[in-house]
């Protein structure tokens, strides 16, 4: 299926290309406030109610690219070039990674249940009888729901012989595994950062593209312009994201301004090895459970919402953590940039001194386009390809368990404990409940691999190709080698 968010995705990427190009050329100060006008000229049809609204949304999107949230807006008249000037001086990347643009949020309808015009105002009126709150009355033409009484139980939908009552979801709220994104009285959505786990599902779900990411691209370009050694730490999920080989990517990254490409798969190897060891130890001391810890959205979920699980989460650093450590050991002066499909990694990096910045595949693609680097025509750098094939599989569901099993089969003489692995994927409301039960020891299984995104990181919110294709590519490379 071509993704529904096509138009929104395209706008997002076009904005990124324009900002990156301008910043590289040193002309962004003069251009940035004009971008919304250039992209939405008044002689072309608007995609929202009018071009002015379109432009207002673009302005917020640009603020996001500069690393600001809607919450940072104090004066609506403040021009983008002032935000840009602040972004260039910023020494710490923003701590919150998402925001919701008020003008873009359409304010999806309040109540989930709606009676459509398929209603015949029939004589039997089963809907009125099924409603436990007497919220439905039948007028001369059609039945109506009194939304102040409706409790969203959905009983009426099942009894209507015409199937006239439908459930209309609020896409972002529906996608959010923690209930962190909610409406205020005026109908617009806000994210409650006390329960938000930065999984980015709302970003992907909103058909109005109202959820914004706060980028760190300005900082990355600054480091490149300052002539620092900027190391690109690419997530295992990168395979299959671009029409190019790993060798071509390495060359493209160099042309884009990075000094080296470091495969996070090599960090994943260490994670797998040490996580296997940790699993032995924990089972030996009598724990009934251990869970993976490489998905930061899951780790946040435990920290904020499933405290029972805390003691079972592995303490082994994530592949990104190990890779950052490796890079800084080699050169403490280098600037490390993790590049992946993930929103939550930005959060994880905030508390990891070895990871300076995080970029998404989408932002990397925009950087290639801005620099007019055409990967397919490059010869490619010679790579050692030293990462363990199992470690490459980390980006797809079940990859972690497979890598650990592989480590365990290496056997150091001792008989490894029996591993009863379960994959918890994606992180949705149902799986949040399951995790609670696992923590309380009410479900079978002693190792849980938890990944917030459908299909694993390849299904991350900022992936360029769909999870199925990306996953197939990751698994293929993992097996080829």
């Amino acid at each position: 299926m071509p993704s529904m968010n096509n138009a929104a995705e395209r706008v997002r990427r076009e904005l990124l290309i324009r900002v990156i190009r301008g910043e590289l050329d040193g002309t962004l100060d003069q251009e940035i406030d004009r971008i919304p006008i250039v992209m939405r000229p008044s002689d072309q049809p608007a995609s929202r109610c009018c071009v002015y609204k379109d432009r207002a949304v673009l302005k917020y999107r640009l603020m996001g690219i500069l690393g600001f949230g809607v919450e940072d807006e104090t004066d609506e008249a403040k021009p983008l070039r002032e935000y840009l000037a602040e972004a260039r001086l910023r020494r710490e990347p923003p701590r919150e990674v998402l925001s919701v643009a008020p003008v873009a949020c359409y304010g999806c309808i309040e109540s989930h249940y709606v009676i459509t015009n398929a209603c015949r105002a029939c004589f039997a009126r089963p809907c009125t009888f099924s409603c436990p709150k007497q919220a439905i009355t039948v007028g001369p033409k059609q039945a109506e729901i009194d939304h102040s009484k409706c409790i969203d139980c959905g009983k009426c939908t099942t009894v209507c012989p015409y199937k006239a009552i439908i459930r209309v979801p609020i896409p972002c709220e529906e996608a959010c595994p923690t209930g962190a994104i909610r409406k205020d009285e005026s109908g617009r959505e806000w994210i409650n950062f006390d329960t938000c786990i930065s999984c980015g599902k709302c970003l992907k779900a909103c058909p109005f593209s109202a959820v914004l990411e706060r980028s760190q691209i300005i900082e990355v370009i600054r480091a490149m312009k300052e002539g620092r050694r900027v190391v690109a730490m690419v997530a295992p999920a990168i395979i299959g994201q671009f029409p190019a080989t790993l060798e071509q990517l390495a060359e493209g990254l160099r042309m884009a301004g990075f000094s080296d490409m470091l495969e996070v798969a090599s960090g994943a190897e260490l994670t797998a090895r040490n996580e296997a060891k940790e699993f032995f130890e924990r089972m030996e001391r009598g724990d009934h459970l251990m869970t993976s810890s490489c998905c930061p959205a899951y780790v946040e979920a435990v920290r904020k919402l499933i405290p029972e699980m805390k003691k079972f989460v592995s303490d082994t650093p994530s592949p990104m953590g190990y890779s950052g450590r490796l890079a800084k050991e080699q050169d403490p002066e280098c600037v490390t940039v993790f590049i992946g499909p993930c929103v939550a990694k930005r959060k994880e990096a905030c508390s990891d001194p070895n990871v300076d910045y995080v970029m998404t595949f989408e932002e990397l693609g925009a950087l290639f386009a801005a620099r007019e680097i055409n990967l397919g025509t490059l010869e490619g750098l010679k790579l050692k390809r030293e990462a363990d094939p199992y470690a490459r599989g980390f980006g797809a569901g079940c990859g972690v368990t497979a890598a650990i099993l592989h480590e365990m089969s290496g056997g150091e003489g001792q008989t490894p404990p029996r591993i009863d692995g379960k994959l918890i994927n994606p992180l949705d409301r149902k799986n949040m409940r399951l995790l609670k039960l696992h923590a309380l020891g009410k479900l079978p299984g002693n190792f849980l691999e938890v990944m917030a995104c459908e299909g694993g990181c390849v299904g991350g919110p900022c992936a360029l190709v769909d999870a199925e294709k990306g996953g197939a590519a990751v698994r293929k490379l993992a097996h080829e080698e």
Partner: protein
Amino acid sequence: MGNGSKLKVEICLGTTCFILGASELQDLAQYLEPELLDRVDIVGRTCLGFCKDRKFDGAPFVRLDERVVIERATVTRVTEKIKAMLKEKDAE
């Protein structure tokens, strides 16, 4: 014309086109009805050259029969254009 007079469909898979939407056009063949599929010859290209000199706005690009260039190509738009061009061909 060679190739049994099939309509040539060149999909640009250069990096710019790819990230601006061509990643989905790759699967064009899956969306074409079998009758249409029989009459086209789909090839991927690394950069058709239209994105150069900072004119990326039109990406992704698709070129039909070496003469018609579709800007901001989507599966739907390409399919429509293919149908129209095949009809023209039939009329000739």
